[in-house]
């Protein structure tokens, strides 16, 4: 076998001299690793915008009445915060960055199935994002409908609705292309010996996610198109003045937007299933259960959308059915959490930054998930619907779940992507600050919502002020933590010491190749004989790593 020794460094994808130079070598690259980094950079920029908007909103909440912005601006702030964070950040999120980068590597492939389509996805993503941003500065003013674009208000408001809607449509198209690319890649480009049940669980999660992307995104696509043509042509579809039924809009919207929640969280769960066995130094507990539960979440998650509509005026029958189905989705999620905990049990746990983030995830996501049951239950939801309780719940799930894991994934894979290590101590400190800030910011919102503070309000009664101030202070701590974290990561990428090929002792394929990887990922396509988290040989990874892939059958 012609494996290069560690000392021999081959030219990585970062330095690869392509046909085009400089920036063009990136934005026109069809290499999945470069596209992953393109997404990373653009997403972090959009994230910064979204955080800034939220920061201003929290400032406005310091006291009742006007602090920094007027009511109409506040409406546009929460709308754009939602649109940017959801459509531009967490929906593409982990699949677009880490899926693009690591899916082919974990499968033992040289690229995704359709590399050009992959580049097109990124371009569409950028165009969609630019549409959303440009609409801010055009006549009519920024959109103020909330990120849900509910009719009939979205048909009647005079603000710029069409452009951000078009942006959302294009982003949906981008998401679909990524999804079908991943499904085809998983089916067609697995390395020899890589059966479905030898795939890493991150791949399983991405595969399930990709199916949701393909079968649910078009539904919101058509909904958006209908709102646009209803605005332009005054055609009667949703507008009740013309006989339309706005509740049908809500159905169509949530048929996508609820599964979208699983587009956001499933890949994060996949990352958790990668990080845990690496740092527990043992194989994952219940591999098949976790793999199937990904599919089950994708499947059941499709059938619970109307729990967003308990107070919309839909029929009681469907309210009860959807409440029941909502509880069912907790089962596969529970399967995952129990298997993760069981993986840690009797493992030789090595508590390093990626695992720290996973710990934060399990804690925060559990709070988010359990409060979800309160909302999923019909009787209690009626009371806390559209209050800060809901806001707190989905921030615990989305931020505490997906984004915390996105941070964890950055800490886990950045050494592989750039070949350099960040400062682990600073990373742990940053995680601590984020955790404290996060809970001060969002847990107070549970209390506020329970007391009756409605969401999306620009002003409030004086009795809520104390909690609002605490919450706002929490937002400052959280932002401070994120600044420290990003600074540490960026400094690590630029100046950090060399990370080596396998800093964590990981067992999946990406840890068996050079850091940063070469353009073709593998010098030769590996043959897989092991389940992905086989750890017997991993105690002394430096010596055994090649044996594990090539001669794994010896054990």
């Amino acid at each position: 076998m012609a494996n290069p020794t560690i000392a021999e460094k081959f030219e990585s994808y970062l330095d690869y001299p392509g046909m085009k130079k400089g920036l063009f070598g990136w934005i026109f690259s069809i290499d999945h690793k470069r596209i992953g980094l393109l997404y990373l950079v653009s997403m972090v920029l959009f994230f910064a915008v979204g955080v800034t908007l939220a920061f201003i909103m929290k400032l406005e909440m310091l006291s009742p009445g006007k602090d920094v912005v007027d009511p109409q601006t506040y409406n546009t702030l929460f709308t754009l915060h939602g649109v940017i964070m959801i459509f531009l950040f967490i929906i593409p999120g982990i699949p677009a960055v880490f899926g693009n980068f690591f899916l082919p590597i974990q499968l033992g492939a040289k690229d995704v199935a359709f590399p050009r389509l992959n580049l097109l996805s990124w371009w569409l993503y950028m165009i969609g994002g630019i549409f959303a941003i440009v609409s801010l500065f055009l006549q009519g003013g920024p959109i103020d409908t909330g990120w849900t674009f509910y009719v009939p208000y979205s048909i009647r408001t005079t603000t710029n609705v069409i452009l951000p809607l078009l942006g959302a449509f294009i982003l949906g198209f981008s998401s679909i292309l990524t999804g079908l690319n991943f499904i085809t890649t998983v089916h067609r480009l697995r390395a020899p010996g890589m059966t479905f049940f030898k795939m890493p669980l991150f791949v399983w999660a991405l595969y399930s996610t990709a199916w949701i992307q393909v079968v649910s995104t078009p539904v919101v696509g058509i909904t958006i198109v209908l709102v646009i043509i209803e605005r332009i042509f005054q055609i009667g579809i949703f507008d009740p003045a013309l006989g339309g039924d706005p509740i049908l809009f809500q159905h169509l919207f949530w048929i996508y937007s609820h599964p979208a929640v699983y587009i956001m969280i499933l890949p994060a769960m996949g990352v958790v299933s990668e990080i845990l066995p690496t740092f527990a130094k043992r194989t994952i507990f219940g591999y098949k259960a976790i793999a199937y539960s990904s599919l089950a979440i994708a499947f059941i998650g499709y059938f619970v959308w109307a729990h967003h509509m308990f107070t919309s005026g839909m029929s009681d029958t469907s309210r009860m059915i959807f409440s029941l189905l909502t509880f069912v989705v907790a089962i596969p999620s529970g399967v995952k959490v129990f298997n993760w905990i069981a993986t840690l049990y009797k493992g030789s746990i090595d508590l390093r930054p990626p695992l720290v983030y996973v710990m934060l995830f399990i804690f925060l996501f559990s709070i988010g998930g359990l409060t979800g049951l309160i909302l999923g239950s019909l009787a209690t939801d009626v009371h806390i619907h559209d209050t800060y309780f809901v806001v707190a719940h989905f921030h615990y799930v989305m931020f505490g779940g997906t984004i915390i894991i996105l941070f964890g994934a950055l800490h886990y894979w950045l050494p592989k992507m750039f070949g350099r290590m960040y400062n682990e101590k600073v990373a742990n400190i940053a995680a601590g600050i984020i955790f404290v800030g996060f809970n001060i910011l969002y847990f107070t919102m549970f209390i506020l919502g329970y007391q009756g503070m409605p969401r999306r309000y620009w002003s409030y009664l004086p009795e809520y002020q104390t909690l609002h101030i605490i919450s706002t202070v929490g937002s400052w701590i959280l932002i401070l933590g994120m600044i420290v974290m990003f600074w540490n990561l960026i400094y690590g990428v630029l100046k950090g010491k060399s990370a080596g090929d396998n800093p964590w002792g990981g067992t999946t394929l990406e840890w068996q190749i050079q850091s940063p990887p070469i353009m073709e990922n593998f010098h030769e396509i590996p043959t897989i004989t092991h389940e992905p988290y086989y750890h017997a040989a991993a105690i002394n990874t430096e010596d055994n790593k090649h044996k594990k892939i090539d001669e794994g059958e010896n054990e």
Partner: protein
Amino acid sequence: MSKPNEGVEKVPLHLADPHHHKDAIGAKMGMWLFLFTELLLFGGLFLLYMAYRLQYTQDFVIAAKELNLMMGTINTIVLLTSSLTMALSIAAIQRNKKTLAIWMLVVTVAFALAFMVIKYFEWTAKIHHGIYPGSPDLLNMPNGEIIFYGMYYSMTGLHALHVIIGVVIILFMLVFLIRDKITQHDYIKLENAGLYWHLVDLIWIFLYPLFYLIH
């Protein structure tokens, strides 16, 4: 694209070049997945149609009387026949009959254009009667009829858009055929274009009874 690496063994041919592998089954899989998104896109419209038809059963019957059954039926036959010629074009290139394949594509485009022309006459006739989105005549109708025309214009309009896209795709295939980019051994592009065209046909198969055959 790939740079030479000394001492590296040959990998299977279809994996050798990461960015230029040819995998016909993979390409077809991607196409089918895309078609599912189209199905679900129209599925959302059909769902709306179902809800509104239940709500406004009588209004739908009255409004549908205005539609021209003859034109709708001719268009159905035109589109079905274009699907046949598309399938025949693929069958021809599989048997290495390039000229026949080209002619069949030309006929397909001709049928597609015929469909659009008939559609044009149908729509202009409606517009002459004052029935078009936002028109005062339409807005004075009962709510159910407004919704019927809302659904009619958006569904047939979106379908017509797909026909136009289909024509563009087929024209590209025509160029590929003439330039031998599509051959007996590598016709996946044509096959995928065919799948798309049949999907356009498939949607019309359902639109036709739902709009033209209401009594």
